[in-house]
C-alpha cells in the first residue's frame, strides 16, 4: 500500500485484494458482541468534509471508532473556512493538532492530491470524494459487494460483467469504479446519454453505450448512478421523464437481468428517476448492504494505512512544494 489513498489507480491488483481480504475479516466483527478493536488506539483521524455527506462521513467515523482511533469531525459549515480560511491554513491547523490521517471530501477535483503532496501535513490522506474526479473507497466497497455476491469472496472479478448507468460525467464513483474494476479483471460498460459521458471516456479501460436494454441480459451487476442535479448547470437531457424512460431501471428492465445479477446504487437515490422504488426494494438490490460493507472496507483502508509503521520520509513525493 502507498501512504495515501487518492485514486483507485493507486491500487494494483495485490493491493486491492489485500484491502478486500482485510475487509472480509473485519466484516466478521459486525457479528460480535464487542464491535471494537484496539488497533488504532492513540491515533487521530480527521474527517475533513468541505461538501455535504451523510453516509461517507458516518461510515468513516464508524470505521475509525471501531478501530479505537480518536475522530475529529470537521465540516466547512460553521468552521473558519466560512471566514475565508484556505485549504493550506486548515491543513496546517490539523497538522499542528497531530492528525495521523486526514479523510477529505472536497468539491474541487484534486484537492486531496494537493493536500497529500504539498508537504502541509505529515499523515496519510484518504480521498473521500473530490469534485467529479474520484471516490476510491466507494469503488472498494462496490468491489467488495460484487465479490461477495459474484465470486464467493475469493479472488478477483475476472470476467464479471458490470454495467454502470447514468450520469457518468459528474460521477466520481463511476471513474473510480472503472479503474478498480479494470484492475480486478471485470468488464465494465458505461451506459449514458451522449451528453453525460465525459470527454476522453474512450481512453478509459471500459466500453460505452447509449442503449441500456442491450446491456442488461448479460450483466452480473448493474450499478445505477445518481443524477447529480446540483452539478448540472446546462440542459444535459430534455426532461426528467425522458431520462427516466431511457436510462432509469424499472421493473421491466430488472426482469431482463439474469437471475444471479445484483442491482447497486452508491446513494443517495432519486427514487423514480434513475431507479424505480420496486427495483430499489427488490431482493436482488444490495443497496443497503453496500452501506454496511462501506464500514468494513474503510476499516480495512484505515488499518492498512495507519496500523503499521509509518513510512519513512523517503516515501514522500520529492516533487512536493511547500
Amino acid at each position: 500500500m502507498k501512504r495515501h489513498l487518492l485514486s483507485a489507480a493507486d491500487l494494483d491488483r495485490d493491493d486491492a485484494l489485500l484491502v478486500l481480504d482485510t475487509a472480509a475479516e473485519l466484516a466478521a466483527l459486525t457479528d460480535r458482541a464487542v464491535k471494537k478493536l484496539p488497533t488504532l488506539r492513540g491515533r487521530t483521524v480527521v474527517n475533513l468534509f468541505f461538501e455535504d455527506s451523510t453516509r461517507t462521513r458516518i461510515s468513516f467515523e464508524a470505521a475509525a471508532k471501531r478501530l479505537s482511533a480518536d475522530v475529529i469531525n470537521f465540516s466547512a459549515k460553521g468552521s473558519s473556512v466560512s471566514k475565508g480560511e484556505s485549504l493550506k491554513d486548515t491543513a496546517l491547523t490539523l497538522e499542528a493538532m497531530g492528525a495521523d490521517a486526514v479523510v477529505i471530501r472536497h468539491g474541487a477535483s484534486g484537492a486531496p492530491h494537493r493536500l497529500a503532496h504539498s508537504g502541509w501535513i505529515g499523515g496519510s490522506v484518504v480521498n473521500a470524494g473530490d469534485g467529479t474526479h474520484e471516490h476510491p473507497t466507494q469503488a472498494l466497497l462496490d468491489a467488495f459487494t460484487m465479490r461477495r455476491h459474484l465470486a464467493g469472496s475469493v479472488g478477483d472479478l475476472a470476467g464479471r460483467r458490470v454495467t454502470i448507468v447514468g450520469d457518468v460525467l459528474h460521477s466520481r464513483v463511476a471513474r473510480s469504479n472503472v479503474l478498480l474494476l479494470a484492475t480486478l479483471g471485470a468488464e465494465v460498460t458505461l451506459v449514458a446519454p451522449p451528453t453525460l459521458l465525459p470527454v476522453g471516456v474512450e481512453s478509459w479501460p471500459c466500453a460505452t453505450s447509449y442503449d441500456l436494454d442491450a446491456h442488461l441480459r448479460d450483466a452480473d451487476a448493474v450499478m445505477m448512478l445518481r443524477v447529480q442535479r446540483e452539478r448540472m448547470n446546462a440542459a444535459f437531457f430534455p426532461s426528467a421523464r425522458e431520462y427516466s424512460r431511457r436510462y432509469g431501471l424499472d421493473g421491466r428492465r430488472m426482469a431482463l437481468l439474469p437471475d444471479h445479477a445484483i442491482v447497486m446504487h452508491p446513494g443517495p437515490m432519486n427514487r423514480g428517476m434513475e431507479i424505480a422504488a420496486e427495483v430499489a426494494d427488490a431482493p436482488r438490490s444490495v443497496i443497503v448492504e453496500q452501506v454496511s460493507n462501506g464500514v468494513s472496507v474503510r476499516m480495512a483502508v484505515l488499518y492498512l494505512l495507519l496500523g503499521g509503521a509509518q513510512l519513512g520520509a523517503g516515501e514522500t513525493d520529492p516533487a512536493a512544494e511547500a
Partner: protein
Amino acid sequence: MSASRTPDDARTVLDGAEIARALTRVAHEIVERAKGAEGLVLLGIPTRGVFLARRVAERIRQIEGREVPVGSLDITLFRDDLRQAPARALLPTEIPAGGIDDKTVVLVDDVLYSGRTIRAALDAMNDVGRPRSVQLAVLVDRGHRDLPIRADYVGKNIPTAKSEKVHVLLAEHDGEDAVRISGHAAGEDL
C-alpha cells in the same frame, strides 16, 4: 514461503513420528484435565496453530468418541508490535458456532517464545466472549519468556539460544512434519 523457512544448517529436533506422539500425549492430557471432552473448544492461532488444533481435536475424538469444536483466532489486530512493521495482512478468525461463553478454551500454537502472542490472543478472546477457563497447548516451548505466561500442555521443551530460530513444519502447510532449529548458539547463554 515454506521452501525458504529452513536454512541448510538446520538440525531436526522432532521428526514426524515424534510430533504425532507429542500431540497424542497432549490430547490425553487435555481430556484428563477436563475429565472428558464436554465443554471443550480448541482455538488455533493462525497459521500453524490451526492445523495443530485440528490434529489434537481429531485425537480427542478418537479417545472420547465425540467431536470437539475447533476454530481459529487471529491476533494480528491485538499485537503490541504493530507499529514496528508495515501493516500486516489479517488471517482468518473462525469462532465455532457454539461460541466460547462458559466453555473451556484451549489455545493452540506451534511455538511458545516471548509470550506476547498469547497475551494478544487473550485480549482477542476477551472481545469474543467469556470462557469459563483458558488453557494453552503448544507443540514447542523454547523458553525466553518476556511475560508471565506459561503453557498447560507442551509437546516438547526445547532449550534454545535467542539467536537461534525454531522452524515448525506441518504437512498441511509445508508438505512435511518436522521441527528444526537453525542459527548458531555460540557465545550465548542457554
